[in-house]
Structure formats: structure tokens, C-alpha cells
């Protein structure tokens, strides 16, 4: 029997900046996981992934990542996605640095 589908978000990297990005319901991208579109239907997930990949002039390496619904929006399931959300643990660069300067 096929495994039951678990909710997903679409994540990728910004082609020029390299930052981890997430696909939103209006077909644009955010750097904040909690703003991402949480997809709960398997067929819908595949279609949305195609929508995301169509933007390959701006993004690279889109894939479906497990996520759960949290109070503030989608939360990561696997520790890989938790690290990707925060950025590298050895340096505060990219979005961590941007946040520090706010």
C-alpha cells in the first residue's frame, strides 16, 4: 500500500543570491518558511512543483519538503529543513545577517 501523503512545502534556492526560498500561493517566493504555501494534496503538490519549476530563470533546485502546520504557518519536519530555514550554523550570513541588521 502506498504511504499516506504528508503535507509539503515547495522549497528551492534563489538562482543569483543562493538563499533558501519557499513557494507561496500567489506563485511568488519568500525567504520565510512560515509564509510558504502548505500543500496537503498529493496531485496538487505535483502541479504546484511544476508551477515553481517554470520559474527556473529565478530559482534552482525546487523540491517538495515535508512540513507541518504550526501556529505561525508551516514548520519543518526534518532537521535538514530546520537548518535550511535558519541558514548555516557556522556563520551568520545571508538572511541571518540581514535579520541582525533590522
Amino acid at each position: 500500500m502506498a504511504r499516506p501523503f504528508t503535507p509539503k512545502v515547495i522549497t528551492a534556492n534563489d538562482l543569483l543570491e543562493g538563499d533558501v526560498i519557499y513557494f507561496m500561493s500567489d506563485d511568488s517566493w519568500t525567504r520565510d518558511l512560515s509564509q510558504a504555501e502548505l500543500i496537503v494534496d498529493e496531485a496538487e503538490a505535483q502541479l504546484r512543483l511544476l508551477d515553481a519549476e517554470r520559474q527556473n530563470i529565478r530559482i534552482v533546485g525546487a523540491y517538495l519538503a515535508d512540513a507541518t502546520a504550526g501556529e505561525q504557518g508551516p514548520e519543518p519536519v526534518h532537521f535538514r529543513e530546520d537548518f535550511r530555514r535558519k541558514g548555516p550554523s557556522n556563520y551568520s550570513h545571508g538572511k541571518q545577517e540581514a535579520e541582525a541588521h533590522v
Partner: protein
Amino acid sequence: MLDALGEAGLHAIQTSGTTTRNTTADHFAGAAADELTDPRPYAELIRQWSTDHPEFQFLGRKFKIAVTGSPNDRAVTKAHDVGLRMVEQNGEIGFEVIVGGGLGRTPMVGKIIRDFLPQADLLPYLESVLSVYNVLGRRDNKYKARIKITVQENGIDKIRELVEARFEERRREFDGTDQALLAEIKTHFTPPALRSGATDAYQAAYNADPVFRAWADTNLAAHRDADHAIVTISIKSHGATPGDASAEQIRVMADLAEEFGYDELRISHQQNVIIPHVHKSDLPAIHARLKEHALATANIGLISDIIACPGMDYCALATARSIPVAQQIASRFDELKLEHDIGHLQIKISGCINACGHHHVAHIGILGLDRAGVENYQITLGGDATETAEIGKRTGPGFAYDEIVPAVERLVEAYLAIRSSDEETFLETYRRLGMEPFKSALYPEAQKKVA
């Protein structure tokens, strides 16, 4: 980017694909006191021969060759598809040819296929090895396609027989052009005209300044010229990311190489920077400049000189983080102030089984895995990357992310308690006493249960 690299004389040809990849050599090449001949002209000869070699563009898998110019292997030749180790026999210099080594998911130490190969026979012999591999190597399974599996499945004796038979044919096809080319290449590797002069300044600083002395003791290697030294600049400052230098630090090192190092600077596979030729009288000045830019860490070969792969913080293949583990180990032993007491001890960390961190050949190897959605670190002991190469053995169950540094600390404490003298290195103690004492230090609970 490729354009900009091209302008600086760099390229990316055969850095990928099922071809002979870039040939590597010893990072002390042309400078080391123990060297028989400079291995770089041979590496360059192999590069020119293998670039666009029509027969070997579609091998079963990638193929890597390493050359070391001295009997002391610093190029990890036993973990390459073909390793060439310069040896001397009856006054003649030639190669010991090692085949079928490799790390990754199936780590193996290369086997000696030829004790002594005269240097003039290098290319025909390599061609024979590659040709045998090209025919016998498996193409049905990517994980079984490297020559290490071919050697294991067919046996080194059969491979040797086939290579020698092929060699008889190939040798006749070489008319000496390769040797003329080699002679030409050698002119591009003429050593710099080393200057002479008094080294009193070095001796004076060595006697007067304990910080300089500590640095000189760990970070200098013997140069073939007694008035010179090989400087290793540690890019492993305690608690920092192993192998990372800032743009400013890189400029400082380039300036130092220009000013004091005959314009030469190298990057080693151990993630450090080498200035291969430095007159000893310049060492105090170099050290002072390095100190200003946080580059004077005196830890080459010590416990904090860790090789770490980028790990999950950066790499899409990784199954666990490695850089933070390296940072924590280095910081911890710096706090303990035990580093110099512990002596020569290599820790290498990989964040997945592809082993970019060379953990298999570390005295203490750490492999980060994903066990049911949690980071888990396995420890291997007794690996060795030199001419006495060995693959480390797994100690047992892995450790969680917050348990790995204490586990390494227990290992090192055990070593300090059982070493026969201050001179006995970790690897020597392990070889003398085996896994047991280290296992009981790592897993105290398991021991209690047995008792």
C-alpha cells in the same frame, strides 16, 4: 566565471565526468627534505596525456591518480584509483604503483600492482591499467564501477597479469615523444634560485619568543635546503570554520608568498595553506604578520587541525552537520590546554558516506549520519592516510550531536592514561593495544552491564 579563471591560467577540463580527473601531488613537492624527485612534472605529464585521451573519455566511472615524490606519502596515494609513490632501487628512481584504493561508501586501501616501475615506462603502464579497467570495470552499477571494485572482484593477481600483458603491447607504441615532453615540462618546474644568508634571526626568535617557538615547532617542515623551511599556515584557528579564510587573509598570504616565498603558495588537501620555500631568517617577520591577521595558529598535525567537509550547513548530499562538530572539538581542546600534550592526532569529519572529509583515514574519524530523522555520529579509530595506510574501524553505536564532543574527549583521556610515554602517538597506542581500551572509554554503560 570560467572566463575569469581562464585569464588566471585555470580551467575546469576533466574535473568531472567518467574520465581521468586532475592528478594530485604532495603539497610539499619540490621543497621537502625527504623527496627523491619533484613529482609535479610527472603529474603534469599525466594531465597532458590524459586530457582528451580518446580511449579514456568513457570509462566506467571517474578515475583519480596521485603522485608523491618521496617515500613518506603525503598525497594519500593509497586512497586513489592509481597511486604512484616514488622509490629508489639500485640507485635508480622509479614508482611503486598502487591500484584500487578509495574512500567513499566502500573504503579500500590500494594494492601494490608493481613494486618498481622505471620512470620512463610511466605512461604506457598507466595506459595499460586504464585499458584493463575500461574492459573489466562494471558499468551496470554506479556503486561498483570504480577500479577498487574491479580489483577486488578479479583479484590483484589477475589484474596484474592482464596489465603486464597489455603493457608489453603498449610499450612498443611509445617512441620516446613522452620523454621529450617530460624533459620540456621539467623546465617549467625549475626550483627557485634559493638565496643564502645567515639564519641567526630565526634562532634568536626561536630562543626568545615562546609563541614563535610553539608555531615553529608545529607549523614548519624540513626543507631540502637547510637554510630554508616549509611553512604551513594553519587555516584552523580554534573555533573557526576549518579551511575558511577571509578575502583579506587570502591577500595577506599572497603578499607574504610574494615578499618572502619566491612567489609561490599552495593549498593542501588538509585545508591549510603552504608557502613551500622560505628562508629561515624571514620566519619571524612572517609569523608577526600572520599573528596580526589571526593566521598564526600553531596546531598543524594536532587535534584541532581537523579536516571537515561542508556538511549539512551547505551540502545537499550531507546527512548531518560537520563544521560545528569540528568547531566544538577544536574549542574544547583549546580550553583544556591539552593540545600540545596530546601531540600528533588527526581528526577528520564527513557529513555523509561519500567521505569528503576523509574520515576513513583519520586517527579518529567521525561520520555524520541521519538515523530516523536525528543526527548521529559514528566514530572510527586507527585510520591512517600515509604510506602505512589503513581504514579506520568502527567503534560501535553512534553518538547524538550533543554527545559527540564528550565522546571524543573520553577517547583522548583514555589515550593519555594508557600511552606508554609522552612520545607515543594516539595511532601508535591504538596499534599497540587495539580497540578495547578505547571502546570501554566510549561506552562506559555497556561495560557496567557486562560486569
